[in-house]
């Protein structure tokens, strides 16, 4: 197997006594979309900032594109593109001026820049708006322009820190199409998000909680290996009442509400279905449907975080 694009060993960052990132280790294969998931404050940005050379790690080691982040930070910088969590292009420059400036900052020749400019504009969907001041763009456009500027110099690896934060669902989907496009060109994408549903778009995932990695793998692996107990998707009347009733039953392992239905985790599929219908029937609640489903990643993460914390309160991790 080729050398991984990113290799992280026990990377730790403390701010005073507070451990923001606690000995995380992982590898990212080349050309993949690597998702780093976690709630706000989990330590995602801090990890990314260490990998991009913005912060010095307290301890541990990492290589990015084969370069050690401590010893060769400037080589790392040539190999990567970075899009920070906060919009960080110049609001008082136009779209074309921002692209021109970052092109120059990355040492692109005028000719190379002239070639890349239309490509970036196309990628961001900003053809015809070259002369607009960047601060007048909507959030979705800004994010796409920021992505364009981050890949202007054709890096092998890009780090995207919550690129879809604060963007409407349609724009989020479009943004993920862009990320897929980058991946198809062979670029390694390291992306963080606190939207758990976005994990489905990734090839490989790590869930980070309070500075520690609590689960990892491909979406499929996670769904099949982490949760062994069957999950039933129950469609019934008065679902909030139904949830409260079922939560008190000893044979119910985990519960949650998903849209207009309940996800109930039980020991055995057949028996579970029967018990649910009987229990709710006694309260006069009609069960329309109770099908076994593949656990969603949200189920996985809730399970993992509850496991870690001992009890529930993991609802916070949900979007």
């Amino acid at each position: 197997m080729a050398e991984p694009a990113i290799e992280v060993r026990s990377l730790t960052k403390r701010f005073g006594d507070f451990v923001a990132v606690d000995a995380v280790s992982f590898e990212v294969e080349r050309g993949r979309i690597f998702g780093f998931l976690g709630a706000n404050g989990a330590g995602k940005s801090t990890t990314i900032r260490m990998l991009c050379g913005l912060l010095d790690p307290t301890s541990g080691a990492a290589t990015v594109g084969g370069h050690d982040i401590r010893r060769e930070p400037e080589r790392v910088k040539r190999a990567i593109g970075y899009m920070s969590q906060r919009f960080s292009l110049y609001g008082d420059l136009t779209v074309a001026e921002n692209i021109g400036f970052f092109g120059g900052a990355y040492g692109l020749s005028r000719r190379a820049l002239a070639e890349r400019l239309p490509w970036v504009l196309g990628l961001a969907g900003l053809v015809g708006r070259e002369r607009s001041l960047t601060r007048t763009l909507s959030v979705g456009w800004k994010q796409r322009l920021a992505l364009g500027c981050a890949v202007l110099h054709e890096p092998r690896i890009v780090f995207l820190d919550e690129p879809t934060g604060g963007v409407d669902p349609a724009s989020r989907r479009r943004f993920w199409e862009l990320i897929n496009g980058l991946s198809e060109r062979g670029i390694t994408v390291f992306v963080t998000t606190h939207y758990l549903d976005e994990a489905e778009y990734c090839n490989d995932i790590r869930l980070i909680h309070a500075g520690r990695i609590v689960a990892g793998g491909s979406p499929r692996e996670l769904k099949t290996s982490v949760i062994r107990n069957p999950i039933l998707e129950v469609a019934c009347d008065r679902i909030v009442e139904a949830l409260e009733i079922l939560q008190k039953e000893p044979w119910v392992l985990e519960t949650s509400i998903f849209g207009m239905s309940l996800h109930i985790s039980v020991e055995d599929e057949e028996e579970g279905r029967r018990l649910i219908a009987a229990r709710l029937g006694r309260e006069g609640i009609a069960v329309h449907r109770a099908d076994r489903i593949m656990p969603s990643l949200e189920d996985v993460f809730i399970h993992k975080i509850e496991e870690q914390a001992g009890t529930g309160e993991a609802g916070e991790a949900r979007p």
Partner: protein
Amino acid sequence: MRAVLSIVWKEFVQLRRDPRLFPVLFVSPVLQILLLGYAANLDVREIPSVVCDLDRSAASRAFLDEFVNSGYFTVRARPERMADIDPYIDGGRAALAVVVPRGFGDKLAGSKPASVLIIADGSESQTATIGVNYATSIANRRAQRIVFDRLERVRGPGPKPALVKAEVRVWYNPELRSRNFMIPAILGLVLMIMTITLASMGIVREKEAGTMEQLIVTPIRPYQLIAGKLLPFTLIGLVEAGFVIAVARLWFGTPLRGSLALLFLMCLAFMLNTLAMGLFVSTVSRSQQQAMFTTIFLVMPMILLGGFVFPVENMPPLFQLVSRAVPTRYFFVAIRGIMLRGAGWPELWPQAAALLILGTALFALSVLRFRKKLD
């Protein structure tokens, strides 16, 4: 080089779009120079005074007339008794009192030493010193005249004794206009505040806006980043200097006796110091507000210890020593020299050397502190 030029270009585009640019660059220096040019007038005239004639003789009246007519004093009151003077001085209505004691005329007539009493309000030390000097010189002149009159009378006709008069001549600033002395220094002040502020704000603003984070991940080297950020401000500083000199010449008629080229070179050497300070401020500040306070904290000693108002030679030895590390000290000497005396390279190279050495040291310190990291 391409990276540096990109930053320089970007800075100019941003400056051009900044609506605050014109006021900061052209309105504020004019305001400062007008304000300080008129306020920083150290000449003392029309000192509010009271006179108290306890003698009421012809001699005392003659003496006080001379005092009153000198033009330096305006008489606020003529109290009859000593005790009535106090309220004027204490209440700040008079800065000076002249008292002619009883027996003044008789003593003079009897060729005995006579004295007058001068009371000054020491809390206004500048005014007091100057007022006492004027009053003393008036008294001396009067005394001299009396002596000569007497000599003439005693000796009868014959060759007149030579009148020895110490005449003070002021060179370079013949009208002793303190405004001429102040205005070159104001150029230094404007230049210093402008460049420190622009440099520190220019960098801290990028930290605040988050764009610094994006700059740090580019392969731009720290020295390229610094050069790219500071070059535009150097240029602006020179334009600013030219503008302030023009206002000084055309509005205040401040002389420019030396070489303009040397003046600009000195400004450049001075800006090496102030831009380094701006850079330093940016490395210790997270917000523009912090940068502002740090700048004020730096600028105050630069003004006071640099000899803006009080000459360095009059400071206590310790402060004189400290002032050696203050770039304004050298710049004020250089710029006053060039503008008022027409001083050239032979006289001013020590100042130029001091500015270069200090500036290089400050720059090295700031560059070492400036790291391409977030914390």
